[in-house]
């Protein structure tokens, strides 16, 4: 029964993906600005013939609906075309960049969870304590700061002044990490390369923290308020009266129920994670998808933007699907 519901949800997202593809396509094509200008650069001599040539090479001379049809049929086949600027298949470019972005996003999520869970739980248990007040004030600050600004401040403090952590990049170039999955932490673990592991972990700290901070703040607040609610609920009172140890009450009874709203919020925050990475990757020169898309948007590199935004949208839809499924396990009362 559950499997069928899940399948149903997956099927429902297919037309959404098509809609996304069409919207992205139209947006990019109706955007003013001729990609051929960008391909040719400025200065030097360019002949009209060369421009025509480029135009037909990328189907830019065909009517819009033909371009759209070509794009959709190719996309179904897994062909997202060639980047105008890099002259490389878009799928290859995305595949190369995706691990970096996922690694950063997961790190940020991990940071967010590690920070928010103890704070959220303890703030609820010791409501109105100094810890509660301070951490909630911190949480508010976390969501009230633009991410790029926080990133720059962290760079100045921890990299430039203190020299603790690197300013930018994913790994030291001389870490001698053999090519593998593209997830550097995983690759260095698999190959037992200790230097590469340390290097890649150090590079993850600042961008991961910057990206995760805002989410941590939101999660901590949600967790705190739902913990407060569950801690007051009947079954927790009952468990306490039965003489269950306090930590058991908190973790087993209260937390489990407080997790339901928290998981929903995590699902919503995946969007923040994906959008935020465009900014954070730019600040920290993180060679991921976000930085590539930002550059591609400015270069009017249509195929690359289309392909990448599709990947973002798919990831987002998938993440929310996973959250929905998780949800049913946490709270058996809810059907999908």
């Amino acid at each position: 029964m559950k499997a069928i519901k899940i399948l149903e949800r997956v099927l429902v997202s297919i037309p959404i993906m098509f809609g996304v593809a069409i919207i992205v396509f139209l947006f990019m094509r109706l955007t003013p600005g001729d990609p051929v200008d960008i391909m040719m650069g400025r200065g030097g001599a360019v002949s009209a013939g060369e421009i025509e040539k480029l135009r037909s090479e990328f189907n830019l001379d065909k009517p819009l609906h033909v371009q759209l049809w070509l794009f959709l049929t190719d996309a179904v086949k897994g062909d997202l075309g060639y980047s105008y600027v890099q002259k490389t298949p878009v799928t290859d470019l995305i595949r190369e960049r995706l691990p970096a972005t996922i690694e950063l996003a997961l790190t940020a999520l991990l940071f967010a969870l590690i920070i928010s869970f103890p704070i959220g739980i303890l703030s609820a248990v010791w409501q109105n304590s100094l810890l509660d007040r301070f951490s909630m004030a911190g949480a508010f600050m976390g969501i009230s700061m633009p991410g790029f600004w926080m990133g720059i401040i962290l760079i100045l403090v921890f990299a430039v002044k203190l020299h603790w952590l690197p300013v930018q990049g994913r790994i030291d170039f001389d870490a001698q990490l053999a090519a593998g999955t593209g997830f550097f932490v995983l690759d260095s673990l698999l190959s037992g390369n200790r230097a590469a592991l340390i290097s890649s972990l150090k590079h993850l700290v600042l961008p991961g923290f910057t990206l995760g901070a805002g989410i941590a703040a939101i999660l901590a607040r949600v967790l705190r308020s739902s913990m407060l609610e569950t801690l007051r609920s009947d079954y927790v009172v009952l468990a306490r009266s039965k003489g269950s140890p306090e930590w058991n009450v908190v973790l087993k009874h209260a937390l489990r129920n407080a997790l339901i709203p928290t998981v929903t919020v995590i699902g919503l925050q995946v969007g923040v994670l994906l959008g935020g990475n465009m900014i954070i990757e730019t600040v920290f020169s993180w060679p991921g998808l976000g930085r590539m898309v930002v550059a591609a948007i400015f270069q009017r590199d249509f195929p690359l933007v289309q392909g990448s935004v599709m990947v973002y949208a798919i990831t987002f839809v998938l993440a929310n699907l996973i959250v929905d499924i998780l949800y049913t396990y946490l709270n058996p009362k809810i059907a999908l």
Partner: protein
Amino acid sequence: METTPPTVQPTNRLIHLWSIRLKLWLRDTKEFLRELILHPTALIGGIIVILYILAALFAPQITSYDPTKGNLRDRLKPPAFIEGGMKEYPLGTDAQGRDLLTRIIYGARISLIVGVVSVGISVLIGSILGALSGFYRGKLDAIISRFADLLMAFPFLIFAIGVMAFIGSGVTNLIAALIFKGWVEFFRVVRGEMMSEKTEEYVEAAKVTGRGNLAIIVREIFPNIVQSIFVLATLRIGEMIIMEASLSFLGLGIPPHIPAWGSMVASGRDFMLVAWWVSTIPGIALMILVLSINLFAEGLRDILDPRLKTIA
């Protein structure tokens, strides 16, 4: 309202009705204010927000400088309280030699306008479409809901970046880009509430008395959900202001001469090492406003609508 004496004239009757409403409203407000005082963080947040609004409204009275005119010879002067600062520029100057305090005060206008207008119109569009969809259902609902689903598939910032790249930078464009997706959330909330409230008894009762659908939506259902919308909207204002900053960071936000905090923070980032104040002071101004809005919104939520807890 049922206390209305049956004998009065129609006009008097109307006045009477409104006076009762006013009294009720005053009572609610008083009660609300009393609760607000018991909620110190919300109160402080509210007061700071009001101060910001006042500063924005009376900017020309507070400062004598023109926020767009600078003196290149006085560029990058530090704040007065730091060595090398000048009394004329209490918070220093930016790279064009413009007074930072002036730009921050005028910047409050733009940031508040971006936040309030984009959220306000989003609420309006979202509520109307949500009410229609939720109340009438049918084809209209299906179309709007599918479109909303589609927009939901894009992370907000990515969507806004795309739209800004498409329509170009500028205050109006920025607000338009934020509304383009901002309405969806309100649409969903209102639609959901509509669908559940529609089956409530008081709505059924109103139907029986023969009142029109529009009257039912506006008079009966809306008052019951307006508080949740209000709380949600307040929370979103802060987010929109941060969004403006992020877009400006990428060069897609607000044109440079217009004083807006986001673009001030963004364009000052290159000077962080030599003139930290150019980026940091507007950043702090922005942070305090967003913080205050959020504190106020959270207080509101506690007072008005404890149900909404999980919507962050």
